[in-house]
């Protein structure tokens, strides 16, 4: 692990993480309420009271940035967590049992993959209606597929190995083999998939919120902040700069860590990059 920090990608990732961390820390120390409307401070510039100024309703931008950032990370981790849990479960099941179970599950995966990822998430979130829970549901519905296909492919090649045969011969149960023997052996590529998946989900959440079908006002998301900032670009250009820079740094850091993990764990193959949002 100590060797990992010597890699330039990891150094750069740590550098990229500095800004989001600084925003979180500063907001914590500053302690302003991102929901408090102050009509005297509408579009206020940078000051001690509001280090990054205020938005169109006089709400503190720094506090909202921190809220949006926490939400991005939260949604990202929850979606990747649930997606990985479901996807790996489905993938191992399909790979292990083969036959009809396999073809049914993989057809399902094929159908999900027949949509550009962001479009399916947009359509599902639009139909389900606004709200963070619906947003998470829509992103999970798209996100499990990568994990499922990857773990299925890995399990297929592990199935033929002697140690798995031995486990079966010893009479180990299917679930036990799956957790004790298969999962540890496929963990490396899955970890890489998870890190790129996290970047894609963070962009996806912000993108959906940008389009107005994710997080709803008055809650702050980096995506909604970018949208609000875009409409005020002529008056107060910094409002669109801040949330974007923070989002970009976060995604960049996650992507760099993914790259470093892939090199370190020597994973090759069809692990996707971030979504094309």
């Amino acid at each position, binding site marked *: 692990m100590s060797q990992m920090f010597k890699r330039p990608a990891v150094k750069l990732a740590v550098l990229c993480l500095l800004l989001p961390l600084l925003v979180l820390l500063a907001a914590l120390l500053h302690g302003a309420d991102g929901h408090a409307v102050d009509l005297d401070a509408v579009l206020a510039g940078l000051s001690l009271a509001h280090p990054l100024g205020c938005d169109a309703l006089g709400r503190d931008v720094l506090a909202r940035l921190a809220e949006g950032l926490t939400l991005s990370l939260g949604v990202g981790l929850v979606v990747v967590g649930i997606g990985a849990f479901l996807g790996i479960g489905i993938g191992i099941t399909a790979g292990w049992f083969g036959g009809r179970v396999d073809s049914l599950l993989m057809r399902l995966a094929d*159908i999900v993959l*027949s*949509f550009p990822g962001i*479009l399916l998430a947009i359509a599902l979130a639009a139909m389900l209606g606004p709200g963070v829970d619906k947003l998470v549901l829509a992103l999970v519905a798209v996100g499990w597929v990568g994990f499922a296909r990857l773990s299925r492919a890995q399990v297929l090649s592990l199935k033929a190995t002697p140690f798995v045969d031995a486990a079966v011969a010893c009479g180990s149960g299917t679930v036990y083999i799956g957790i004790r023997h298969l999962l540890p052996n496929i963990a490396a590529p899955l970890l890489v998939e998870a890190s790129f998946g996290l970047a894609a989900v963070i962009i996806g959440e912000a993108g959906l919120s940008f389009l107005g079908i994710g997080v709803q006002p008055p809650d702050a998301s980096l995506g909604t902040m970018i949208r609000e900032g875009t409409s005020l*670009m002529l008056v107060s250009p910094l409002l669109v*700069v801040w*949330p974007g820079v923070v989002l*970009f740094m976060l*995604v960049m850091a996650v992507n760099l860590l993914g790259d470093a993990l892939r090199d370190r764990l020597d994973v090759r193959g069809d692990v996707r990059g971030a979504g*094309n949002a």
Partner: protein
Amino acid sequence: MLMRLILYRLLQAIPTLLGVATLVFLMLHLVPGDPVDALLGEMALPADREALRHALHLDAPLWTQYLQFMAGLVSGDWGQSLIDQRPVLSLIAERLPATVRLAGASLLLAVLLAFPLGFWAARHAGKRQDMTAMGFSLLGVSIPNFWLGPMLMLLFSVLLGWLPVSGMDQPGSIILPAITLGTALAAVLSRMARSSWLEAMSSDAIRTARAMGVGDTMLWWRHAGRMAAIPVLTMFALQLGAVLGGAVITETVFDWPGLGLLTIEAIQQRNYPLVQGCVLLIASFYVLANLTADVLAMMLDPRQRRA
């Protein structure tokens, strides 16, 4: 042999398209509660309710609805817009040319950037030039369209005043949207070009050619270039579909009146049949692009025909 393989692959796309259509059909039933309530509100008159329910075919059993939906898709009746009762297909047809223009421009830009960048990076693999090129590529992948767009707008339209802010009417208005949409594509393609060029250069065929005295330029462009082009072209065909997904966001940023903006407008108006039509069309394009990628790979690389 090749024709049979291509035909087989074409036939494989049919169940996929059926699956896509089924998922799009089921989407309407994801609307929580009753879509009619969602559209008209709780206070609507019963007669209006029934009329809308009938227009959406929600008064029939699910199976009948499904068969009606599928039969409609095949016969060119994709339903009607709930806002102005116009056929969904003609609304889509009006907006399609704008999206094709935008997608074409961004793909062209991506290719023009990606090949030289990928080549440059491969040529200087491991050196500073490589790091620079791949740094740009990482930047391009990590920067979301919905922020790159506003930033370009801020710089070139607001601060410098060189280019129009949004819309499609003024000359030069396609430039910023095309850059926005093309950047991520260029990033992905140049990474692909770099790695496949490097892979080609380390192949036995190239070593043999070099041993036989083929010059460096010839080696890089003629021999390795042809080998590297296959995965890049395949990736390009895949991007043909992905670009339409990205267009949804880019068109919204720039108010570009294409299919993507139509989708978002339809979502905002809860115009469910139109949402279904747009999503179905974009996904079908995507499936066809994947198909093209497969067929292209089979045609260019005989080794792929075995699988």
